[in-house]
């Protein structure tokens, strides 16, 4: 599972359009399994969820899935079952008779994902997949995407949501101004470089400030600690415990991916 992160205008959607053959590169070339994108898509199809869900507004949800299923090459004998499965998977059972224009933003997003999953595709591309989903469905979406993992399948996710990419992606490419800045393994273990942390404590404020000289209080016993290496951090925590301050939570102020992102795009 490959993630794609970048600020607005970085070129994420353009890159996806290149992968689908919707745009031609002005320089260089794109190949999927050795084929030009359009040749690959017209041969095999791609499970694609676009950022903008564009489906004719008068189509009914179930009819839309039937149309896309036929075009996706789902065998006629399997089509009804497959549609029922994706409707069930995406919780769209009570929406099946509605037209596209009657759907809420979240349900439209789920319909977009449903049509991408109609066939067992080898390549899946999801552009801002949780855009418009409520927290429950955002989590459900992550579970669905996790379940899509299988050998030989490539899943490509572009998202503004770094937390989502941190949780889902095995590798994340960070791009800016149309250039690849770096490729990160977001779950590659703790960084050894100095990192700012958030610590939550129960105890004397003066003790915390005494141990971590530049700690900034965020209220409710939370403090943001300046960039510290692991040795200094652990020594500080030991000093707090020795002096009767209890630590209830300790985490990096930014996820590893967020840190990389900030460094790569200069934010």
């Amino acid at each position: 599972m490959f993630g794609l992160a970048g600020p607005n205008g970085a070129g994420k959607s353009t890159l996806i359009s290149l992968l689908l053959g919707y745009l031609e590169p002005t320089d260089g070339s794109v190949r999927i399994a050795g084929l030009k994108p359009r040749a690959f898509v017209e041969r095999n199809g791609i499970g694609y969820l676009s950022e903008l869900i564009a489906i004719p507004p008068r189509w009914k949800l179930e009819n839309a899935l039937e149309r896309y299923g036929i075009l996706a090459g789902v065998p006629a004998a399997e089509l009804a079952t497959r549609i029922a499965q994706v409707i069930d998977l995406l919780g769209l059972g009570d929406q099946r008779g509605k037209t596209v224009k009657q759907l809420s933003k979240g349900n439209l997003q789920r319909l977009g994902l449903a049509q991408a999953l109609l066939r067992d595709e080898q390549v899946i591309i999801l552009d801002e997949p949780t855009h418009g989903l409520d927290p429950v469905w955002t989590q459900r979406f992550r579970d669905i995407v996790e379940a899509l993992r299988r050998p030989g399948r490539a899943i490509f996710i572009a998202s503004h949501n770094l937390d989502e990419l941190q949780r889902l992606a095995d590798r994340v490419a960070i791009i800016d101004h149309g250039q690849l800045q770096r490729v990160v393994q977001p779950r590659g273990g703790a960084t050894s470089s100095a990192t700012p942390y958030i610590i939550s404590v129960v105890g004397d404020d003066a003790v915390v400030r005494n141990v971590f000289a530049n700690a900034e209080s965020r209220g409710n016993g939370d403090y943001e600690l300046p960039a510290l290496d692991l040795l200094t951090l652990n020594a500080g925590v030991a000093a707090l415990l020795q002096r009767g301050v209890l630590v209830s939570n300790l985490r990096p102020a930014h996820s590893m991916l967020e840190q990389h992102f900030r460094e790569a795009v200069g934010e």
Partner: protein
Amino acid sequence: MTAPQRRRARLSQYTPWIFRDYMTNQGPSTIVVVLLVGFLSVMPVIQGVTGAATKMGQVPVETARRILEAMLPPLAFLGTFFATNGIIANDRKLGYYRFLFAKPVSPPAYYAMTFGVYGVGLLLISIALMGIWAVTVRPMFPIEILVIIPLMYLAYGGIGFLLSAAWRFDWLSLVTVLLIANVAWAVWGNAEGLRHWILYVLPPVHRANDVYRLRFEGPPGVIPWSSIAWLGGYGLACFVLGMIVVRKRSLGTS
């Protein structure tokens, strides 16, 4: 990554959906506009404005034939106009291409099929309108319409298809091109030199009347093969060019 087993869209099974789209969108527009034109043409005859009043369903054959000849150009043009307006450009403009062509679908094959199905739809709508005509004006079914409508659909529709493939302002440009062609053929029809050759790049709209004048319920006339070939050939050439544009022009540009 290795290429998976090839799996194509079932385009032929998608045909009923395209037909349904035509019958729920463009078809009704064609019926309403042509019925309005027909009503405005027939009512003066029924009311006796143009001579002795006559009854619905019993309009004299020669009068019915003349009215039908007058109504055929609007039917062919407006029907084709509604059918091909936005046939490709709308998918680009509104972003519908994104899901459609992420499936294993060839855009030229998809749009060629759409063009064909819409043509069949227009023909069926025309036959239905002739049924209404037979009931309300005079019982007659001019078989020539089965030639005229498909031919004019190919002639005008081929141009519309090319324009829709090329850019987003297809309806506006179709009307403009046909208007320019009409004026140019009227003004420069007998010109020589460069103007003469420019005319041959424009749609042969001056030949349309030859086709519309195919006899209805009258003595058989001379079949205008040259005009049929010119109009059909021009439309077919535009359609083929349109297919090339669909293949070559990036889907993501509108």
